[in-house]
Protein backbone atom coordinates (compact mmCIF):
# COMPACT_ATOMS: atom_id res chain seq x y z
CA UNK A 1 0.00 0.00 0.00
CA UNK A 2 2.80 2.32 0.89
CA UNK A 3 4.58 1.34 -2.31
CA UNK A 4 1.52 2.13 -4.37
CA UNK A 5 1.15 5.49 -2.72
CA UNK A 6 4.79 6.39 -3.30
CA UNK A 7 4.65 5.43 -6.98
CA UNK A 8 1.45 7.18 -7.82
CA UNK A 9 2.88 10.71 -8.03
CA UNK A 10 5.77 9.43 -10.12
CA UNK A 11 3.37 7.79 -12.55
CA UNK A 12 1.34 10.96 -12.72
CA UNK A 13 4.47 13.02 -13.30
CA UNK A 14 5.65 10.70 -16.06
CA UNK A 15 2.26 10.78 -17.72
CA UNK A 16 2.22 14.56 -17.48
CA UNK A 17 5.72 14.75 -18.95
CA UNK A 18 4.74 12.47 -21.83
CA UNK A 19 1.60 14.47 -22.43
CA UNK A 20 3.50 17.74 -22.37
CA UNK A 21 6.09 16.38 -24.78
CA UNK A 22 3.41 15.08 -27.09
CA UNK A 23 1.63 18.43 -27.08
CA UNK A 24 4.74 20.48 -27.81
CA UNK A 25 4.35 22.22 -31.16
CA UNK A 26 7.56 20.79 -32.48
CA UNK A 27 6.59 17.31 -31.39
CA UNK A 28 3.57 17.72 -33.56
CA UNK A 29 5.79 18.88 -36.37
CA UNK A 30 8.07 15.90 -36.01
CA UNK A 31 5.11 13.66 -36.59
CA UNK A 32 4.95 14.92 -40.18
CA UNK A 33 7.62 12.85 -41.96
CA UNK A 34 6.44 13.83 -45.41
CA UNK A 35 5.49 17.49 -45.40
CA UNK A 36 5.07 17.58 -49.18
CA UNK A 37 2.11 15.26 -48.74
CA UNK A 38 0.14 18.45 -48.04
CA UNK A 39 0.37 19.26 -51.76
CA UNK A 40 -1.87 17.68 -54.32
CA UNK A 41 -0.11 14.98 -56.38
CA UNK A 42 0.39 17.06 -59.54
CA UNK A 43 1.82 20.02 -57.64
CA UNK A 44 4.01 17.74 -55.60
CA UNK A 45 5.39 16.16 -58.74
CA UNK A 46 6.22 19.55 -60.27
CA UNK A 47 7.87 20.71 -57.04
CA UNK A 48 9.93 17.53 -56.77
CA UNK A 49 11.12 17.95 -60.34
CA UNK A 50 12.35 21.47 -59.50
CA UNK A 51 13.95 20.21 -56.29
CA UNK A 52 15.74 17.51 -58.27
CA UNK A 53 17.04 20.17 -60.64
CA UNK A 54 18.33 22.09 -57.62
CA UNK A 55 20.10 18.99 -56.37
CA UNK A 56 21.77 18.53 -59.72
CA UNK A 57 22.72 22.20 -59.88
CA UNK A 58 24.16 22.10 -56.37
CA UNK A 59 21.94 24.77 -54.82
CA UNK A 60 19.89 24.30 -51.62
CA UNK A 61 16.71 22.25 -51.98
CA UNK A 62 15.09 22.97 -48.64
CA UNK A 63 14.07 26.56 -49.50
CA UNK A 64 12.17 25.16 -52.48
CA UNK A 65 10.26 22.71 -50.33
CA UNK A 66 9.55 25.44 -47.77
CA UNK A 67 8.21 27.78 -50.44
CA UNK A 68 5.81 25.05 -51.58
CA UNK A 69 4.66 24.45 -48.00
CA UNK A 70 4.23 28.18 -47.47
CA UNK A 71 2.02 28.39 -50.54
CA UNK A 72 -0.01 25.43 -49.33
CA UNK A 73 -0.42 26.97 -45.86
CA UNK A 74 -1.59 30.22 -47.43
CA UNK A 75 -4.05 28.38 -49.67
CA UNK A 76 -2.39 29.56 -52.87
CA UNK A 77 -3.51 27.79 -56.00
CA UNK A 78 -1.27 25.14 -57.47
CA UNK A 79 -0.14 27.28 -60.39
CA UNK A 80 1.11 29.99 -58.03
CA UNK A 81 2.85 27.48 -55.79
CA UNK A 82 4.81 26.01 -58.70
CA UNK A 83 5.64 29.48 -60.05
CA UNK A 84 6.89 30.57 -56.63
CA UNK A 85 9.07 27.49 -56.22
CA UNK A 86 10.49 28.02 -59.69
CA UNK A 87 11.17 31.67 -58.84
CA UNK A 88 13.13 30.65 -55.72
CA UNK A 89 15.11 28.12 -57.76
CA UNK A 90 16.05 30.72 -60.38
CA UNK A 91 17.00 33.14 -57.61
CA UNK A 92 19.32 30.53 -56.12
CA UNK A 93 21.00 30.01 -59.47
CA UNK A 94 21.48 33.78 -59.76
CA UNK A 95 22.83 33.99 -56.22
CA UNK A 96 25.44 31.41 -57.09
CA UNK A 97 26.44 33.42 -60.15
CA UNK A 98 26.63 36.65 -58.15
CA UNK A 99 28.16 35.45 -54.89
CA UNK A 100 29.53 31.98 -55.53
CA UNK A 101 28.68 28.81 -53.67
CA UNK A 102 30.60 29.49 -50.47
CA UNK A 103 27.56 30.76 -48.63
CA UNK A 104 25.90 29.61 -45.48
CA UNK A 105 22.20 28.86 -45.33
CA UNK A 106 21.33 32.35 -44.07
CA UNK A 107 23.24 34.04 -46.84
CA UNK A 108 21.55 31.89 -49.47
CA UNK A 109 18.18 32.90 -48.02
CA UNK A 110 19.00 36.61 -47.65
CA UNK A 111 20.56 36.89 -51.11
CA UNK A 112 17.65 35.01 -52.67
CA UNK A 113 15.18 37.36 -51.01
CA UNK A 114 17.14 40.38 -52.24
CA UNK A 115 17.12 39.17 -55.83
CA UNK A 116 13.42 38.35 -55.73
CA UNK A 117 12.71 41.82 -54.35
CA UNK A 118 14.36 43.45 -57.35
CA UNK A 119 18.03 43.83 -56.48
CA UNK A 120 19.86 43.36 -59.78
CA UNK A 121 22.47 40.68 -60.19
CA UNK A 122 25.20 43.26 -60.77
CA UNK A 123 24.47 45.04 -57.50
CA UNK A 124 24.61 41.77 -55.62
CA UNK A 125 27.85 40.80 -57.32
CA UNK A 126 29.53 43.91 -55.87
CA UNK A 127 29.20 42.37 -52.41
CA UNK A 128 31.27 39.43 -53.60
CA UNK A 129 34.11 41.64 -54.74
CA UNK A 130 34.26 43.47 -51.41
CA UNK A 131 33.39 40.55 -49.19
CA UNK A 132 36.62 39.35 -47.58
CA UNK A 133 34.80 37.19 -45.06
CA UNK A 134 32.42 39.89 -43.88
CA UNK A 135 28.90 38.65 -42.98
CA UNK A 136 26.29 39.45 -45.61
CA UNK A 137 23.02 38.42 -44.05
CA UNK A 138 21.84 41.53 -42.25
CA UNK A 139 22.98 43.90 -44.97
CA UNK A 140 20.93 41.99 -47.52
CA UNK A 141 17.90 41.68 -45.26
CA UNK A 142 17.84 45.44 -44.71
CA UNK A 143 18.44 46.12 -48.41
CA UNK A 144 15.49 43.89 -49.30
CA UNK A 145 13.19 45.68 -46.88
CA UNK A 146 14.23 49.17 -47.97
CA UNK A 147 13.50 48.36 -51.61
CA UNK A 148 10.14 46.91 -50.68
CA UNK A 149 9.30 50.12 -48.81
CA UNK A 150 9.88 52.19 -51.89
CA UNK A 151 13.47 53.37 -51.56
CA UNK A 152 14.84 53.58 -55.14
CA UNK A 153 16.99 50.55 -55.79
CA UNK A 154 20.21 52.39 -56.80
CA UNK A 155 20.11 54.56 -53.66
CA UNK A 156 19.31 51.66 -51.37
CA UNK A 157 21.95 49.45 -52.89
CA UNK A 158 24.55 52.20 -52.80
CA UNK A 159 23.82 53.12 -49.17
CA UNK A 160 23.95 49.55 -47.92
CA UNK A 161 27.12 48.84 -49.87
CA UNK A 162 28.70 52.00 -48.45
CA UNK A 163 27.86 50.98 -44.89
CA UNK A 164 29.03 47.46 -45.50
CA UNK A 165 32.35 48.62 -46.89
CA UNK A 166 32.83 50.79 -43.80
CA UNK A 167 32.54 47.70 -41.65
CA UNK A 168 29.07 48.36 -40.28
CA UNK A 169 27.80 45.86 -37.79
CA UNK A 170 24.39 44.35 -37.34
CA UNK A 171 23.30 47.13 -34.99
CA UNK A 172 24.11 49.80 -37.57
CA UNK A 173 22.08 48.12 -40.27
CA UNK A 174 19.11 47.60 -37.97
CA UNK A 175 19.35 51.11 -36.58
CA UNK A 176 19.31 52.55 -40.09
CA UNK A 177 16.43 50.34 -41.11
CA UNK A 178 14.34 51.18 -38.06
CA UNK A 179 14.85 54.92 -38.44
CA UNK A 180 14.07 54.90 -42.14
CA UNK A 181 10.99 52.77 -41.50
CA UNK A 182 9.73 55.27 -38.91
CA UNK A 183 10.36 58.18 -41.26
CA UNK A 184 8.49 56.47 -44.07
CA UNK A 185 5.58 55.65 -41.77
CA UNK A 186 5.56 59.33 -40.79
CA UNK A 187 5.00 60.23 -44.41
CA UNK A 188 8.49 61.07 -45.57
CA UNK A 189 9.69 60.21 -49.06
CA UNK A 190 11.52 56.85 -48.80
CA UNK A 191 14.59 57.99 -50.77
CA UNK A 192 14.89 61.21 -48.80
CA UNK A 193 14.48 59.36 -45.52
CA UNK A 194 17.37 57.05 -46.39
CA UNK A 195 19.63 59.92 -47.46
CA UNK A 196 18.98 61.88 -44.26
CA UNK A 197 19.51 58.91 -42.01
CA UNK A 198 22.72 57.97 -43.80
CA UNK A 199 24.13 61.41 -42.97
CA UNK A 200 23.56 60.74 -39.27
CA UNK A 201 25.71 57.62 -39.26
CA UNK A 202 29.24 58.43 -38.09
CA UNK A 203 32.22 57.53 -40.24
CA UNK A 204 33.33 54.95 -37.69
CA UNK A 205 30.50 52.51 -37.27
CA UNK A 206 29.85 49.69 -34.82
CA UNK A 207 32.28 46.82 -35.22
CA UNK A 208 30.91 43.77 -36.98
CA UNK A 209 29.48 41.17 -34.63
CA UNK A 210 28.04 43.70 -32.20
CA UNK A 211 24.93 42.43 -30.47
CA UNK A 212 21.63 43.41 -32.01
CA UNK A 213 18.85 44.31 -29.59
CA UNK A 214 15.57 42.40 -29.82
CA UNK A 215 12.76 43.90 -31.85
CA UNK A 216 11.08 45.64 -28.92
CA UNK A 217 14.31 47.29 -27.78
CA UNK A 218 15.10 48.45 -31.28
CA UNK A 219 11.95 50.52 -31.39
CA UNK A 220 12.78 52.08 -28.02
CA UNK A 221 16.31 52.92 -29.04
CA UNK A 222 15.35 54.37 -32.36
CA UNK A 223 13.08 56.94 -30.78
CA UNK A 224 15.86 58.32 -28.65
Amino acid at each position, binding site marked *: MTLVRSRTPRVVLRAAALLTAAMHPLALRAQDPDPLARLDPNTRFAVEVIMDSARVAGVPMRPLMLKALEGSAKHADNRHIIAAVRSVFHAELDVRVALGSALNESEWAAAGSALQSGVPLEALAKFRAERAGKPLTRALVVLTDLIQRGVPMPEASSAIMQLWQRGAGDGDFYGLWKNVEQDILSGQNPGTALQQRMREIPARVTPPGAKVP*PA*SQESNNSSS
Partner: protein
Amino acid sequence: MIEPKAAVVALTFVVLASHGASAQIASKVQAGTIMTQQDGEVPASIFSVAPGIRVDLPYLALAAHGSAWLTGQQWQIADGTLSGSLLTPTVSHWRGELIGNASRAFFDGSLENDQVDAQARLHMLFAQRGGIWVGGGVARPWRIAVVSSVDVTGGGAWTRVGDAMLSGTYTNFFFTKVAATRDSSGATQSCGTRNEPLSLSSGAGSSLSSSSTSSAATDCRRQSRFSDIEGSVNWAYGWFELTGQAGYRFGDSYDVTPDSRRWAAGTAVLWITNRVAAVMGGGRVPANPSRGLPARNYANLGLMLSYSSIPRTTVPVAPLTLAAVKDFEVRPLATGTQKITVRVGGVETVEVMGDFSDWTPLVLMRRGRDLWDITLPVTAGVHEINLRLDGGPWLAPPGLPTRRDNFSGDVGLLVVP
Protein backbone atom coordinates in the same frame (compact mmCIF):
# COMPACT_ATOMS: atom_id res chain seq x y z
CA MET B 1 -26.38 15.08 -5.11
CA ILE B 2 -23.27 17.13 -5.41
CA GLU B 3 -22.30 19.09 -2.38
CA PRO B 4 -22.47 22.74 -3.50
CA LYS B 5 -19.22 23.66 -1.82
CA ALA B 6 -17.48 20.70 -3.45
CA ALA B 7 -18.85 21.66 -6.85
CA VAL B 8 -17.58 25.19 -6.75
CA VAL B 9 -14.22 24.06 -5.38
CA ALA B 10 -14.00 21.56 -8.26
CA LEU B 11 -14.86 24.19 -10.86
CA THR B 12 -12.37 26.61 -9.32
CA PHE B 13 -9.71 23.90 -9.46
CA VAL B 14 -10.51 23.12 -13.11
CA VAL B 15 -10.28 26.81 -13.91
CA LEU B 16 -6.89 27.14 -12.24
CA ALA B 17 -5.56 23.88 -13.66
CA SER B 18 -6.60 24.81 -17.18
CA HIS B 19 -3.81 27.35 -17.39
CA GLY B 20 -1.30 26.30 -19.98
CA ALA B 21 -3.35 23.51 -21.49
CA SER B 22 -4.13 25.45 -24.62
CA ALA B 23 -4.18 28.97 -25.91
CA GLN B 24 -7.85 28.53 -26.62
CA ILE B 25 -8.80 28.19 -22.98
CA ALA B 26 -9.51 31.33 -21.01
CA SER B 27 -10.43 31.31 -17.39
CA LYS B 28 -10.94 33.54 -14.39
CA VAL B 29 -11.91 33.41 -10.76
CA GLN B 30 -13.43 36.40 -9.06
CA ALA B 31 -13.86 36.65 -5.32
CA GLY B 32 -15.25 39.47 -3.27
CA THR B 33 -18.06 40.91 -1.30
CA ILE B 34 -21.43 41.83 -2.74
CA MET B 35 -23.87 44.14 -1.00
CA THR B 36 -27.31 43.55 -2.40
CA GLN B 37 -30.69 45.05 -1.61
CA GLN B 38 -34.15 44.35 -2.91
CA ASP B 39 -36.80 47.00 -2.61
CA GLY B 40 -38.25 47.06 0.86
CA GLU B 41 -35.70 44.69 2.31
CA VAL B 42 -32.63 45.05 4.47
CA PRO B 43 -29.32 45.11 2.56
CA ALA B 44 -27.46 41.81 2.68
CA SER B 45 -23.74 41.26 2.50
CA ILE B 46 -22.57 38.16 0.65
CA PHE B 47 -19.13 36.73 0.05
CA SER B 48 -18.99 35.43 -3.50
CA VAL B 49 -16.62 33.21 -5.49
CA ALA B 50 -17.26 33.17 -9.22
CA PRO B 51 -15.16 30.89 -11.43
CA GLY B 52 -15.54 30.84 -15.20
CA ILE B 53 -13.90 29.00 -18.04
CA ARG B 54 -14.18 29.36 -21.80
CA VAL B 55 -12.88 27.13 -24.58
CA ASP B 56 -12.64 28.55 -28.07
CA LEU B 57 -12.35 26.47 -31.17
CA PRO B 58 -12.41 28.03 -34.63
CA TYR B 59 -16.18 27.82 -35.00
CA LEU B 60 -17.28 26.64 -31.59
CA ALA B 61 -17.11 28.28 -28.20
CA LEU B 62 -17.98 26.51 -24.95
CA ALA B 63 -18.20 28.21 -21.60
CA ALA B 64 -19.09 27.41 -18.03
CA HIS B 65 -19.43 29.88 -15.24
CA GLY B 66 -21.06 30.07 -11.89
CA SER B 67 -21.01 31.66 -8.53
CA ALA B 68 -21.08 30.38 -5.00
CA TRP B 69 -22.26 32.60 -2.21
CA LEU B 70 -21.43 32.46 1.45
CA THR B 71 -24.55 33.62 3.23
CA GLY B 72 -24.35 33.46 6.97
CA GLN B 73 -22.46 30.27 7.71
CA GLN B 74 -23.54 28.37 4.59
CA TRP B 75 -22.09 28.03 1.12
CA GLN B 76 -24.58 27.85 -1.71
CA ILE B 77 -24.33 27.60 -5.46
CA ALA B 78 -26.27 30.65 -6.48
CA ASP B 79 -26.14 30.01 -10.17
CA GLY B 80 -24.32 28.02 -12.82
CA THR B 81 -24.47 28.18 -16.59
CA LEU B 82 -23.19 26.03 -19.43
CA SER B 83 -23.09 27.73 -22.81
CA GLY B 84 -22.26 26.75 -26.35
CA SER B 85 -22.01 28.88 -29.47
CA LEU B 86 -21.63 27.58 -32.99
CA LEU B 87 -20.41 30.09 -35.56
CA THR B 88 -20.34 29.89 -39.33
CA PRO B 89 -17.42 31.29 -41.32
CA THR B 90 -17.77 34.90 -42.40
CA VAL B 91 -19.08 35.06 -45.97
CA SER B 92 -19.35 38.50 -47.57
CA HIS B 93 -19.64 40.22 -44.17
CA TRP B 94 -22.32 37.79 -42.96
CA ARG B 95 -21.95 35.31 -40.18
CA GLY B 96 -24.45 33.00 -38.51
CA GLU B 97 -24.47 31.93 -34.89
CA LEU B 98 -26.39 29.33 -32.91
CA ILE B 99 -26.36 29.76 -29.15
CA GLY B 100 -27.49 27.33 -26.50
CA ASN B 101 -27.46 27.77 -22.73
CA ALA B 102 -28.40 25.61 -19.78
CA SER B 103 -28.45 27.16 -16.35
CA ARG B 104 -29.50 26.58 -12.80
CA ALA B 105 -30.28 29.16 -10.17
CA PHE B 106 -30.40 28.06 -6.56
CA PHE B 107 -30.76 30.35 -3.65
CA ASP B 108 -32.00 30.04 -0.14
CA GLY B 109 -34.27 27.07 -0.76
CA SER B 110 -37.10 29.29 -1.95
CA LEU B 111 -35.65 29.90 -5.39
CA GLU B 112 -34.45 26.93 -7.36
CA ASN B 113 -35.01 26.60 -11.07
CA ASP B 114 -33.44 25.50 -14.32
CA GLN B 115 -33.61 26.93 -17.78
CA VAL B 116 -32.51 25.92 -21.25
CA ASP B 117 -32.60 28.34 -24.11
CA ALA B 118 -31.62 28.39 -27.74
CA GLN B 119 -31.09 31.34 -30.02
CA ALA B 120 -30.08 31.93 -33.61
CA ARG B 121 -28.41 35.13 -34.72
CA LEU B 122 -27.36 36.59 -38.02
CA HIS B 123 -24.45 39.01 -37.85
CA MET B 124 -23.38 41.53 -40.41
CA LEU B 125 -19.83 42.73 -39.84
CA PHE B 126 -18.18 45.90 -41.08
CA ALA B 127 -14.51 44.97 -40.85
CA GLN B 128 -13.30 45.93 -37.38
CA ARG B 129 -15.44 49.00 -37.12
CA GLY B 130 -18.73 47.52 -36.12
CA GLY B 131 -21.58 45.23 -36.85
CA ILE B 132 -25.25 44.57 -36.47
CA TRP B 133 -27.18 41.45 -35.63
CA VAL B 134 -30.72 40.18 -35.49
CA GLY B 135 -31.93 37.01 -33.94
CA GLY B 136 -34.47 35.14 -31.96
CA GLY B 137 -34.98 32.12 -29.81
CA VAL B 138 -36.88 30.45 -27.09
CA ALA B 139 -36.22 29.78 -23.43
CA ARG B 140 -37.80 27.05 -21.37
CA PRO B 141 -37.67 27.46 -17.61
CA TRP B 142 -38.38 24.60 -15.23
CA ARG B 143 -39.39 24.53 -11.63
CA ILE B 144 -40.51 28.10 -11.60
CA ALA B 145 -44.14 28.62 -10.95
CA VAL B 146 -44.92 31.61 -13.08
CA VAL B 147 -43.34 31.17 -16.52
CA SER B 148 -43.66 28.20 -18.85
CA SER B 149 -41.81 29.58 -21.88
CA VAL B 150 -40.27 32.77 -23.17
CA ASP B 151 -39.93 33.78 -26.81
CA VAL B 152 -37.12 36.22 -27.43
CA THR B 153 -36.49 38.32 -30.52
CA GLY B 154 -34.17 41.23 -30.92
CA GLY B 155 -31.24 42.89 -32.53
CA GLY B 156 -28.22 44.93 -31.74
CA ALA B 157 -25.39 46.99 -33.06
CA TRP B 158 -21.85 47.61 -31.94
CA THR B 159 -18.98 49.78 -32.99
CA ARG B 160 -15.48 50.65 -31.89
CA VAL B 161 -14.57 54.23 -31.18
CA GLY B 162 -10.94 54.57 -30.25
CA ASP B 163 -10.32 52.35 -27.26
CA ALA B 164 -14.02 52.06 -26.51
CA MET B 165 -16.61 49.61 -27.72
CA LEU B 166 -20.17 50.85 -27.82
CA SER B 167 -23.11 48.54 -28.20
CA GLY B 168 -26.85 48.72 -28.09
CA THR B 169 -29.51 46.05 -28.03
CA TYR B 170 -33.27 45.90 -28.36
CA THR B 171 -34.92 42.72 -27.10
CA ASN B 172 -38.56 41.64 -27.04
CA PHE B 173 -39.69 39.11 -24.45
CA PHE B 174 -42.96 37.29 -24.91
CA PHE B 175 -43.95 35.26 -21.87
CA THR B 176 -46.38 32.48 -21.37
CA LYS B 177 -46.95 32.29 -17.66
CA VAL B 178 -48.40 29.42 -15.75
CA ALA B 179 -49.00 29.83 -12.07
CA ALA B 180 -50.56 27.24 -9.84
CA THR B 181 -53.30 28.47 -7.59
CA ARG B 182 -51.21 27.06 -4.78
CA ASP B 183 -47.50 27.50 -4.93
CA SER B 184 -44.86 25.03 -3.82
CA SER B 185 -45.07 26.21 -0.26
CA GLY B 186 -48.79 25.64 -0.25
CA ALA B 187 -49.69 29.28 -0.01
CA THR B 188 -52.69 30.40 -1.99
CA GLN B 189 -52.20 32.87 -4.77
CA SER B 190 -54.61 34.68 -6.99
CA CYS B 191 -54.89 34.11 -10.74
CA GLY B 192 -55.49 37.81 -11.05
CA THR B 193 -57.31 39.73 -13.76
CA ARG B 194 -56.39 42.36 -16.29
CA ASN B 195 -56.56 44.96 -13.58
CA GLU B 196 -55.20 42.85 -10.79
CA PRO B 197 -51.49 42.18 -11.02
CA LEU B 198 -50.44 38.76 -9.87
CA SER B 199 -48.48 38.74 -6.68
CA LEU B 200 -46.54 35.76 -5.49
CA SER B 201 -46.80 34.99 -1.86
CA SER B 202 -43.37 33.44 -1.80
CA GLY B 203 -40.43 32.82 -4.07
CA ALA B 204 -38.64 35.52 -5.94
CA GLY B 205 -40.67 38.29 -4.58
CA SER B 206 -41.22 39.91 -7.93
CA SER B 207 -44.59 41.27 -8.79
CA LEU B 208 -45.78 39.88 -12.08
CA SER B 209 -48.74 41.01 -14.06
CA SER B 210 -50.81 39.83 -16.97
CA SER B 211 -52.22 41.06 -20.22
CA SER B 212 -54.62 38.17 -20.71
CA THR B 213 -55.74 35.59 -18.27
CA SER B 214 -57.36 32.18 -18.28
CA SER B 215 -57.84 30.24 -15.15
CA ALA B 216 -58.48 26.61 -14.44
CA ALA B 217 -58.94 24.72 -11.26
CA THR B 218 -55.24 24.27 -10.70
CA ASP B 219 -53.40 26.91 -12.67
CA CYS B 220 -53.59 30.26 -14.36
CA ARG B 221 -52.26 30.95 -17.84
CA ARG B 222 -51.27 34.41 -18.93
CA GLN B 223 -49.39 36.01 -21.75
CA SER B 224 -47.44 39.19 -21.48
CA ARG B 225 -44.64 40.98 -23.16
CA PHE B 226 -42.14 43.72 -22.65
CA SER B 227 -39.11 45.08 -24.47
CA ASP B 228 -35.73 46.06 -23.18
CA ILE B 229 -33.47 48.61 -24.77
CA GLU B 230 -29.97 48.69 -23.38
CA GLY B 231 -26.80 50.52 -24.23
CA SER B 232 -23.35 49.70 -22.98
CA VAL B 233 -19.85 51.00 -23.25
CA ASN B 234 -16.60 49.23 -22.56
CA TRP B 235 -13.47 51.33 -22.44
CA ALA B 236 -9.99 50.00 -21.84
CA TYR B 237 -6.93 52.15 -21.41
CA GLY B 238 -3.72 50.51 -20.32
CA TRP B 239 -4.39 48.65 -17.12
CA PHE B 240 -7.79 50.22 -16.56
CA GLU B 241 -11.12 49.00 -17.87
CA LEU B 242 -14.49 50.61 -17.42
CA THR B 243 -17.81 49.05 -18.31
CA GLY B 244 -21.16 50.71 -18.00
CA GLN B 245 -24.65 49.94 -19.14
CA ALA B 246 -28.06 51.49 -18.85
CA GLY B 247 -31.44 50.35 -19.99
CA TYR B 248 -35.14 51.00 -20.14
CA ARG B 249 -37.99 48.49 -20.15
CA PHE B 250 -41.02 49.20 -22.31
CA GLY B 251 -44.37 47.66 -21.53
CA ASP B 252 -47.56 48.57 -19.79
CA SER B 253 -47.78 48.73 -16.06
CA TYR B 254 -49.16 45.20 -15.86
CA ASP B 255 -46.10 43.72 -17.49
CA VAL B 256 -43.36 45.88 -16.07
CA THR B 257 -43.03 46.50 -12.40
CA PRO B 258 -41.94 50.01 -11.43
CA ASP B 259 -38.68 48.79 -9.93
CA SER B 260 -37.59 47.39 -13.31
CA ARG B 261 -38.53 50.28 -15.53
CA ARG B 262 -35.00 51.66 -15.79
CA TRP B 263 -31.59 50.56 -14.60
CA ALA B 264 -27.89 51.37 -14.81
CA ALA B 265 -24.71 49.74 -13.58
CA GLY B 266 -20.98 50.14 -13.90
CA THR B 267 -17.83 48.17 -13.23
CA ALA B 268 -14.23 49.32 -12.99
CA VAL B 269 -11.36 46.86 -13.35
CA LEU B 270 -7.83 47.82 -12.44
CA TRP B 271 -5.24 45.29 -13.58
CA ILE B 272 -2.55 45.08 -10.91
CA THR B 273 -0.57 42.52 -12.89
CA ASN B 274 -1.30 40.67 -16.10
CA ARG B 275 -3.32 38.16 -14.12
CA VAL B 276 -4.67 39.93 -11.07
CA ALA B 277 -7.19 42.73 -11.09
CA ALA B 278 -9.17 44.68 -8.56
CA VAL B 279 -12.85 44.88 -9.43
CA MET B 280 -15.33 47.42 -8.16
CA GLY B 281 -18.84 48.03 -9.35
CA GLY B 282 -22.42 48.70 -8.53
CA GLY B 283 -25.77 49.68 -9.83
CA ARG B 284 -29.22 48.31 -10.35
CA VAL B 285 -30.33 45.26 -12.27
CA PRO B 286 -33.92 44.79 -13.43
CA ALA B 287 -36.12 41.83 -12.58
CA ASN B 288 -35.79 38.66 -14.62
CA PRO B 289 -39.29 37.18 -14.53
CA SER B 290 -38.32 34.01 -16.37
CA ARG B 291 -35.92 33.12 -13.56
CA GLY B 292 -37.95 34.61 -10.75
CA LEU B 293 -35.18 37.06 -9.96
CA PRO B 294 -36.28 40.38 -8.53
CA ALA B 295 -34.88 43.80 -9.32
CA ARG B 296 -32.17 44.79 -6.89
CA ASN B 297 -29.41 47.22 -6.17
CA TYR B 298 -25.93 45.92 -5.64
CA ALA B 299 -22.37 46.96 -5.00
CA ASN B 300 -19.36 44.69 -5.23
CA LEU B 301 -15.70 44.86 -4.44
CA GLY B 302 -13.26 42.06 -5.09
CA LEU B 303 -10.24 40.60 -6.76
CA MET B 304 -10.11 38.77 -10.07
CA LEU B 305 -7.51 36.14 -10.90
CA SER B 306 -7.54 35.65 -14.62
CA TYR B 307 -5.62 33.82 -17.28
CA SER B 308 -7.46 36.09 -19.64
CA SER B 309 -10.36 38.38 -19.30
CA ILE B 310 -13.20 36.24 -20.60
CA PRO B 311 -13.49 38.04 -23.89
CA ARG B 312 -16.10 39.84 -25.82
CA THR B 313 -18.77 37.15 -25.67
CA THR B 314 -21.48 37.38 -28.24
CA VAL B 315 -20.06 39.82 -30.76
CA PRO B 316 -18.02 37.80 -33.28
CA VAL B 317 -15.88 40.61 -34.56
CA ALA B 318 -13.93 40.47 -37.76
CA PRO B 319 -10.21 39.67 -37.47
CA LEU B 320 -8.02 42.48 -36.23
CA THR B 321 -5.07 43.77 -38.20
CA LEU B 322 -1.54 44.13 -36.93
CA ALA B 323 -2.28 47.69 -35.88
CA ALA B 324 -3.70 46.08 -32.76
CA VAL B 325 -0.36 44.47 -31.88
CA LYS B 326 1.29 46.52 -29.17
CA ASP B 327 4.51 44.54 -29.06
CA PHE B 328 6.22 41.71 -30.90
CA GLU B 329 9.42 40.34 -29.49
CA VAL B 330 11.73 37.39 -30.11
CA ARG B 331 14.19 36.61 -27.34
CA PRO B 332 16.69 33.79 -27.04
CA LEU B 333 16.39 31.59 -23.97
CA ALA B 334 19.19 29.81 -22.18
CA THR B 335 17.94 26.47 -23.49
CA GLY B 336 18.83 27.44 -27.07
CA THR B 337 15.22 28.13 -27.91
CA GLN B 338 13.57 31.36 -28.94
CA LYS B 339 10.61 32.81 -27.08
CA ILE B 340 8.16 34.68 -29.29
CA THR B 341 6.01 37.10 -27.32
CA VAL B 342 3.09 39.08 -28.70
CA ARG B 343 1.19 41.71 -26.75
CA VAL B 344 -2.23 42.25 -28.25
CA GLY B 345 -5.60 42.77 -26.63
CA GLY B 346 -9.09 41.89 -27.73
CA VAL B 347 -8.23 38.73 -29.63
CA GLU B 348 -9.01 35.12 -28.97
CA THR B 349 -6.28 33.36 -30.95
CA VAL B 350 -2.78 34.33 -32.01
CA GLU B 351 -0.79 32.08 -34.35
CA VAL B 352 2.61 32.16 -35.98
CA MET B 353 4.07 30.07 -38.73
CA GLY B 354 7.29 30.16 -40.67
CA ASP B 355 9.99 28.08 -42.24
CA PHE B 356 11.00 27.01 -38.71
CA SER B 357 7.66 25.19 -38.39
CA ASP B 358 7.58 23.94 -41.98
CA TRP B 359 4.84 26.53 -42.40
CA THR B 360 2.56 24.76 -39.96
CA PRO B 361 0.52 27.25 -37.90
CA LEU B 362 1.39 27.21 -34.20
CA VAL B 363 -0.98 28.61 -31.61
CA LEU B 364 0.51 30.93 -29.01
CA MET B 365 -0.45 30.45 -25.40
CA ARG B 366 -2.28 33.15 -23.58
CA ARG B 367 -0.24 34.24 -20.56
CA GLY B 368 -2.26 37.15 -19.35
CA ARG B 369 -4.83 39.68 -20.31
CA ASP B 370 -3.09 40.63 -23.55
CA LEU B 371 0.10 38.60 -23.49
CA TRP B 372 0.73 35.59 -25.73
CA ASP B 373 3.86 33.53 -26.17
CA ILE B 374 5.39 30.39 -27.56
CA THR B 375 8.85 28.90 -27.16
CA LEU B 376 10.43 27.23 -30.17
CA PRO B 377 13.82 25.89 -31.16
CA VAL B 378 14.65 28.23 -34.04
CA THR B 379 18.11 27.77 -35.50
CA ALA B 380 20.48 30.65 -36.19
CA GLY B 381 19.96 32.27 -39.56
CA VAL B 382 17.33 34.11 -41.56
CA HIS B 383 13.79 32.88 -41.07
CA GLU B 384 10.54 33.91 -42.67
CA ILE B 385 7.65 34.38 -40.26
CA ASN B 386 3.98 35.31 -40.40
CA LEU B 387 1.52 36.21 -37.68
CA ARG B 388 -2.25 35.79 -37.63
CA LEU B 389 -4.90 37.15 -35.26
CA ASP B 390 -8.28 35.50 -34.79
CA GLY B 391 -7.93 33.47 -37.97
CA GLY B 392 -7.46 36.55 -40.15
CA PRO B 393 -4.94 36.99 -42.94
CA TRP B 394 -1.30 36.03 -42.46
CA LEU B 395 0.75 39.19 -42.01
CA ALA B 396 4.36 40.16 -41.38
CA PRO B 397 4.90 40.82 -37.65
CA PRO B 398 5.60 44.44 -36.74
CA GLY B 399 9.16 45.39 -35.92
CA LEU B 400 10.80 43.10 -38.45
CA PRO B 401 12.11 43.75 -41.96
CA THR B 402 9.77 42.32 -44.56
CA ARG B 403 9.70 41.01 -48.09
CA ARG B 404 7.04 39.92 -50.55
CA ASP B 405 6.13 36.27 -50.14
CA ASN B 406 5.34 35.33 -53.79
CA PHE B 407 1.69 34.85 -52.78
CA SER B 408 0.46 38.45 -52.75
CA GLY B 409 1.43 38.97 -49.14
CA ASP B 410 4.41 39.81 -46.95
CA VAL B 411 6.59 37.85 -44.59
CA GLY B 412 8.75 39.11 -41.78
CA LEU B 413 12.47 38.35 -41.95
CA LEU B 414 13.66 37.17 -38.56
CA VAL B 415 17.43 37.02 -38.15
CA VAL B 416 18.48 34.75 -35.29
CA PRO B 417 22.14 35.35 -34.40
